[in-house]
């Protein structure tokens, strides 16, 4: 027995657990969908490192805007898996009372605000959130998650440009997952990196390996520090890959098999597991226990969602006007 005890970095095991939770949750959701027990949803399988890494750099002061592919962001922010799953199922116990479904879940109490399923919608809203933070003199920042698909829309240019001119405290997180619904990025844009576009608008940016959660977390911490200090926007591009289809179910017949398998060999979760096992941060027994605990949590979420009631019909016209 050695008396030397390595310092266990909680943050890295936490990041792995978060990624496992997202993966298990989304695969369970897809499984329920395949069994016709759940509505469809858009998974972020393969992109978990981006959600877990960026979210680890934000704190309770910060506000988050996400999009249709949001379960990862919500869970990484600490959302209750039961209530996210219930919302996907359109149940009254969901975060939005079943009125959102999977596509536009907001959780105000966690600072996950204004989720829009219109691709690019989040980019148009975030400048307003940044303006509120600036004018109400709050020290939080606004983080907005969007993809390469949204970046090819005009509103990306409008949003980043206005944030630059008005010096808004916004972290733009472009999850460049190579897919724009059913179209490969290379069919719609000549550039490889969205980070180049923001530089042209006068906004500092950086591209990071979006499948390496530690690299994402470190880059996000730097970006957040920059924004807090300078009160200016920053764009972080997490270069990653959507391993499942656009929405469930999807046979991915349109996906290049070689490309898919090459990205699968860089699965962010498998890479992190290897790294923590090799470096002795986690034992295989601890990893198995972590997976089992996550699995139970997700099974409980599915049971909760399935058992929850649908909203009553009087909800058809509530919350339309304030």
């Amino acid at each position, binding site marked *: 027995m050695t008396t030397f005890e390595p310092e266990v970095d909680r943050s890295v095991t936490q990041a792995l657990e978060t990624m496992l939770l997202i993966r298990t949750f989304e695969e369970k959701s897809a499984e329920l969908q395949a069994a016709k027990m759940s509505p469809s949803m858009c998974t972020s399988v393969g992109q978990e490192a981006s959600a877990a890494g960026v979210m680890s750099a934000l704190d309770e002061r910060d*506000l988050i*805007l996400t999009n249709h592919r949001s379960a990862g962001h919500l869970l990484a922010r600490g959302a209750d898996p039961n209530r996210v799953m219930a919302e996907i199922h359109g149940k009254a116990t*969901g*975060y*939005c*009372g*079943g*009125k*959102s479904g999977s596509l*536009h879940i*907001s*959780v*105000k109490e966690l600072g996950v*605000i*204004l*989720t*829009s399923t*219109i691709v*690019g*919608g989040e*980019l*148009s*809203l*975030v*400048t*307003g*959130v*940044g*303006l*509120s*933070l600036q*004018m*109400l003199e709050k020290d939080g920042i606004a983080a907005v998650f969007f993809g390469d698909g949204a970046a090819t829309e*005009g*509103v990306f240019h*409008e*949003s980043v*440009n*206005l944030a630059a*001119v*008005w010096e808004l405290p916004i972290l733009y997180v472009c999850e460049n997952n190579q897919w724009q619904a059913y179209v490969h990025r290379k069919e719609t844009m000549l550039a490889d990196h969205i980070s180049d576009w923001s530089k042209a608008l006068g906004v500092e940016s950086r591209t990071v390996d979006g499948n390496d959660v530690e690299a994402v977390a470190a880059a996000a911490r730097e970006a957040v520090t920059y924004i807090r200090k300078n009160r200016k926007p920053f764009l972080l591009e997490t270069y990653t890959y959507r391993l499942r289809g656009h929405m469930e179910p999807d046979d991915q017949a349109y996906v290049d098999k070689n490309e898919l398998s090459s990205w699968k060999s860089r699965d962010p979760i498998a890479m992190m597991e290897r790294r923590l096992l090799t470096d002795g941060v986690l034992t295989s027994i601890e990893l198995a226990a972590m997976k089992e605990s996550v699995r139970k949590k997700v099974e409980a979420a599915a049971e909760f969602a399935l058992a929850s009631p649908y909203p009553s019909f009087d909800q058809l016209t*509530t*919350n*339309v*006007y*304030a």
Partner: protein
Amino acid sequence: MTTITPDQAMFDGLAEEMRRDPRVVTFGEGTATKHFNLVEEFGKRRVRNTPLAEGIIAGTAAGAAATGLRPVIDLLFAPFMTFAMEELVNSAGKLRFISGGQFSFPLVAIARTGAGWAVGGQHNHNIEAWFVHAPGVKVVMPSTAADFKGLMKSAIRDENPVMFFADIGLLHTPGEVPDGDHVVPIGKAALRREGSDVTLISYGKTVQKCLEAAETLASEGVSAEVIDLRSLKPLDEAGVLSSVLKTGRAVVVHEASGACGVGAEVAAIIAEKAFAQLKAPVVRLTGPDAPPAASYPLEQAYVPQPDRIVEAVKRQVN
């Protein structure tokens, strides 16, 4: 009373609300340039120019409204709102409901429209009914200087997104505005002239056309009541019905084209709820299904004029 233009009345209303509530901010295309008095009084942070990009102006307003500010945005001309439909309709109008009531969107979007400046169909297009069809959004379109001010103040105090349509043809003709905190409630029509034979229902510049027609009709022995809707959503159903139940005849007049327009909605309400009391079918007089032309005579001909209104009423009464 003070006599000022509706244009000034609208921005006086804004200035008073900015004085009252530090959360009120205003930005848009040329806002700071044109309203230097507001910049002087409230500073550059609360009064801002923006790029000529309606989408991001409206989206910024929606995001800011959901997080503690009360933005008033100037989108200049109504057709420019086509660039902001996503933000106004999908975000500001729907995200309160979709989020299960977690957010509200207290914002005002100003857009000018209507014949009067001979600018053609990409600056002049009465699209107010598009927004009546959008859930979660309110729509106003005043016809008097007093209402421009009073409705602006109500719109700013409202917790919902309000589309504020300003009729170009009215903006620079001075009118009387009451002194003090003049607030006009949204959702309440105004009775502009009492009458007993027919109800003329209108909003925006065609209210004045109806009043002119009513004057002519009076000289010919027909007593016309004139109702100014001024709020298109919510619509003052009770106000419309009580008048039509009294007169038994209704002519709805507006500059916007007819199909699925406000007039169609008003006619349907009357048919559903006052059919038995009608002495004649409801008539709609509207602009045609065509873009407004720039050429001044054509532009004016787009708008239902008093002679057409008089004719329609005469056919109803006889």
